[in-house]
């Protein structure tokens, strides 16, 4: 039995965890859910389905909050976003039902592992995003004309209007289905995958990609959340604390992000995320009883492997940066 004070304190702790998740999610561009699920399950031992439910609901709040600012600046392409939502919403339905199957068959340990793997792989596009260069301009293909994928926005940093043509609409839809699936399965916005779909598959500029994906995340998460509700994956007390906390954290994160000029600080955040990713994988192995690792050993393994992940990512970014430099130099000649 919890006393009144204990209940208030518990609410407060989850609320603070939400702020932390929102802050980190905004700073790294991964979104609050990706941080919230590991924090709630590892540090609070909250049941995984409740953590996933609370996380997806909070994702709607941050998506809507930040999208309201971006759509006003007219960078996000609402048209392309809604077109791609056909796939993400369908994917979210399949993903949510898959989670229900896993939950009903004692397979939640696999969700832990998958979560960790997805978190680690999400770091790659997020790190790449820090470079934020424009894609090489390409002529449109038939999907550009048929689905009206051209657009323009005013880039404040470059001080010019950028015109762009989206291509390979069908490839974008395929990646988006997968993004929706992951969102419904793991309770995250899966912004990294959405960015991959628009940046890599459709050749859209990074600014358009990130802002449009932000606005799409809310619609995908709304689909998943309404099924979660009926499945009973949302605990109102937890969801209330995280929705308020994550929203506040994301708001503070967005403000801070503008002020941070030293991009190296983001490496600290990336290392926290990779730590959480490895922890989740180990947690899953523990839950499966395939290996029993004492929690203190788990922490050491996580720290060790996250150092490795960060070093690899750092070299990857250095190589990318060199490629960008070489390209701009050869263009200048």
């Amino acid at each position, binding site marked *: 039995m919890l*006393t009144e004070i204990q209940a208030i304190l518990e609410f407060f702790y989850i609320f603070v965890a939400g702020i932390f998740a929102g802050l980190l999610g905004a700073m790294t561009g991964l979104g609050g859910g990706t941080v919230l699920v590991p924090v709630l399950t590892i540090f609070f031992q909250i049941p995984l389905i409740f953590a996933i439910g609370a996380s997806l609901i909070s994702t709607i709040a941050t998506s809507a*909050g930040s999208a309201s600012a971006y759509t006003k600046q007219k960078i996000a392409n609402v048209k392309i976003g809604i077109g791609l939502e*056909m796939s993400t*919403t369908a994917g979210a339905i399949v993903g949510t039902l898959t989670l229900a199957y896993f939950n009903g068959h004692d397979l939640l340990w696999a969700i832990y592992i998958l979560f960790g793997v997805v978190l680690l792989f999400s770091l790659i596009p997020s790190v790449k995003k820090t470079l934020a260069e424009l894609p090489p301009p390409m002529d449109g293909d038939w999907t550009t004309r048929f689905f009206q994928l051209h657009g323009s926005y005013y880039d404040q940093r470059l001080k010019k209007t950028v015109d762009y043509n989206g291509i390979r609409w069908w490839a974008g839809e395929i990646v988006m289905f997968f993004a929706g699936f992951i969102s419904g399965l793991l309770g995250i916005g899966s912004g990294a995958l959405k960015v991959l779909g628009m940046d890599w598959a459709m050749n859209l500029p990074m600014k358009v990609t990130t802002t449009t994906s932000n606005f799409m995340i809310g619609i995908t998460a709304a689909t998943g959340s309404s099924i979660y509700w009926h499945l009973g994956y*949302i605990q109102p*007390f937890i969801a*209330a604390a995280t929705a308020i906390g994550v929203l506040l954290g994301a708001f503070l994160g967005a403000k801070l992000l503008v002020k941070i000029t030293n991009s190296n600080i983001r490496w600290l955040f990336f290392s926290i995320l990779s730590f959480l990713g490895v922890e989740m994988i180990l947690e899953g192995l523990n839950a499966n009883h395939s290996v029993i690792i004492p929690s203190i050993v788990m922490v050491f393994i996580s720290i060790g492997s996250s150092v490795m992940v960060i070093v690899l990512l750092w070299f990857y970014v250095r190589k990318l940066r060199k490629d960008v430099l070489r390209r701009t130099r050869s263009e200048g000649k």
Partner: protein
Amino acid sequence: MKSFDQESVTSVILKSGVLLSLFLIVLGTLMIFIMKHADNLTLSQIADIYSTTIINSSQISLGDLLSGSLSLDGIYLISLGLWVLIFTPISVVFVGIIDFELQKNYRYVIMALVVLFNLFFAMLVIG
């Protein structure tokens, strides 16, 4: 031809939806702590975050959301707030449909309708 500014309307809807839901969730939380019970559960039952059976969303009847909230029941206020949050991005799709319709962009009207179909399929059929 654009007859209204879709982006600005979208932005206002998103912002007001989030603020309204935030207000309801905060009010609901305060009511739980003040009344020390809600929806026939005690505070310590509501705050039991480790049990998946004492309270979860499947036990909260959506038909009672409004009446429960009007009687200032904390659980129902939070639930209503969460549902306002879920409907916030959905309303953006509605605005999209109106905008595409006014522009006679029927290809996109159909695509937005597919999105809405998926959303309501998730809510009504699967639920």
